[in-house]
């Protein structure tokens, strides 16, 4: 197994709402801190990546947001423009308006065109060694397979032309486990786990991309050992709870209720986590990130995630 940060192109996917952007942002930050020239790219242009780094809205042109760390937002029209200027040597400045509309149209009709421009741009940066590592805050579980399998899709639809000629080297990069990997982020909840298992399966069946790691985000701490849980149950009995309140100077009810909530949630989540462990190939590393009890957003929260990630990766 290749060390995660020694790969050169990492896609980070997962069900919506599991903290995919945060994990991608932390992974990129960690790589940059360890001396790698890193590019992190947001695909969905929702602005979450900029919020993580507390920087202005990201654009297609990468911006250095941290030493050795550049961030960008994918824009397929810009990617097409870059591609054309590299490959056709067409001065595009005056033409891009009508061309963009035409492109939008063809891309709407022909699935795979937008995806190939997204994946192609990132694979190109890897091929040209513009960065040591490219981290992609990729699409959610429903759309990522379409992106990763875009070269194959284009191969079946397009028989000749420049696009067709480009798919070969892209496939080489995407198919090499030493270079490219997919990270799936899940939380220990029913749907995120189900979608992770489903995605791991589809990626194996429908793409050539290696599953590099599964991140389990927002893991709740274990409060008690089994023996301590019996103690806790006794504390919850009305008479003891009353005494406890009297000794602590108020109603102990909320504290006991909150602990009960934490214990039950942790138990429900353990079941889902177990299902995930059973389903994921044992050779794929599973990395655990704690639930953050913090009011911080942005950089401070990101630092905490990066620190937890570093510990999991043994850095």
């Amino acid at each position: 197994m290749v060390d995660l940060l020694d790969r050169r192109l990492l896609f980070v996917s997962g069900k919506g709402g599991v903290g995919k952007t945060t994990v991608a942002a932390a992974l990129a930050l960690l790589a940059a801190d360890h001396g790698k020239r890193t590019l992190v790219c947001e695909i969905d242009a929702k602005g979450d990546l900029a919020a993580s780094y507390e920087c202005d809205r990201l654009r297609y042109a990468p911006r250095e947001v941290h030493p050795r760390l550049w961030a960008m937002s994918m824009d397929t029209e810009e990617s097409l423009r870059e591609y054309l200027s590299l490959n056709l040597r067409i001065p595009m400045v005056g033409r891009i308006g009508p061309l963009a509309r035409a492109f939008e149209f063809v891309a709407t009709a022909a699935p795979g065109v937008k995806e190939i421009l997204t994946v192609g741009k990132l694979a190109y940066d890897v091929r040209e060694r513009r960065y040591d590592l490219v981290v992609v805050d990729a699409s959610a579980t429903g759309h990522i397979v379409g992106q990763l399998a875009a070269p194959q899709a284009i191969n079946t639809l397009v028989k000749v032309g420049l696009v067709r000629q480009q798919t070969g080297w892209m496939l080489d990069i995407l198919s090499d486990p030493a270079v490219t990997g997919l990270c799936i982020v899940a939380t220990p909840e029913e749907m995120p786990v189900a979608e992770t298992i489903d995605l791991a399966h589809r990626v194996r069946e429908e793409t050539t991309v290696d599953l590099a790691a599964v991140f389990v985000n927002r893991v709740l701490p274990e409060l008690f050992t089994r023996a301590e849980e019996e103690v806790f149950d006794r504390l919850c009995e009305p008479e003891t709870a009353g005494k406890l309140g009297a000794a602590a100077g108020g109603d102990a009810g909320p504290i006991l209720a909150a602990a009960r909530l934490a214990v039950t949630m942790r138990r429900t989540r353990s079941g889902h986590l177990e299902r995930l462990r059973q389903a994921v190939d044992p050779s794929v590393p599973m990395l655990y990130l704690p639930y953050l009890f913090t009011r911080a957003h942005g950089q401070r929260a990101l630092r905490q995630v990066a620190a937890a990630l570093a510990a999991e990766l043994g850095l």
Partner: protein
Amino acid sequence: MSPRPRPGDARAASIDQLLAAKEIAITCGSGGVGKTTTAAAAAAMAAVRHGGKVLVVTVDPARRLADALGLSGIGNQERQVPPDAFAEAGVKPRGELWAAMLDTKQSWDALVHRHAPDKETEARILDNPLYQNISSRFVQSHDYIAMERLYELHSAADYDLIVVDTPPTRNAIDFLEAPQRMSDFFSSRLLRWLIAPYRSRLVNMASRPFYQVADRILGSQFLEDIAEFFILFQTMYEGFVERARSVSRLLRDRRTTFLVISTLEASPLHEAEFFIDALNERRLHLGAVVLNRVLPDYLLDEQGTRVAEAMERSAGDIAGQLGAGAGETASVERVLAEIAASFLNFQVVAQREAEQRAELAVSPEVIATVPLFDTDIADMSGLLRLGESIWG
């Protein structure tokens, strides 16, 4: 940002009243906020309390929820949720709950079947590789087809209320735009270029630059495939565009309302606000905002803070005072310190949520809050428990 009430709109005071007054409720919000479950819970409550025939159309329900609704393994066809499911929850509904899944491919095929001029064209469209790609993979086609299916179900007038769960989109407003985009797409000048006989393209000055570039990038064979696909599709043009316009009108209809779902986390809330703005701009009816998985209020209790701090500080003393009844003093001490710390931890998150909620600068007719459930919702009684909490 407050929505402009439209003339004749009575303001609902609860989701109960809102759903009683509407025929269509569309849930929307970013991924992972509980849209599907909320849609199912609202529909179940309406069937129980209001009676009549209520249909919930879901996209991708969790396996156990699908099982609970009797949806496992079925496609597009609506099915009645077995009355047994309600009986097991100890409830006797006044009406019927029906459920359907959204199968994009099946829905597209049905659409082609409806609009194709003859059997042969239909078969050629269904066989076209581009069509197969579009109907099964093309992301935006989910958005359109969800709205299209809603229109079809509403037109059939079999249901008193239809609750629709929207597909996870890259952008929450995509599906609002989908009917318009679809109609623009088929009316486009570019479409005419593409389906013009191939030779005449090269002499058309307007389209020539496009073809020169497109040929080199995609190859002419692919362009021919696209043209063939659109020539076939053009036979359905009028029906299609008219239909897309009707779907757009239905979204604006006063019998339609939108429920925006979010949690109190920064990113989903941000998207919810964005969505609310989009609804207002388009003069669509924002009926309610449902805030899911909200931590319990008791976490914000000031006295609770004092008790937890005392417990954390003097765990040993308090354990001693409780005596042997609770257990061995050392482990009681550890348990007390642990639960006090846990309370204070969750309190931080609850405070963050309260701040987020205070910042939510909208005034929908109804804001409903759903408490965080410590177990998954996997059966009808779970759904109804959630439903009760938003009902009003």
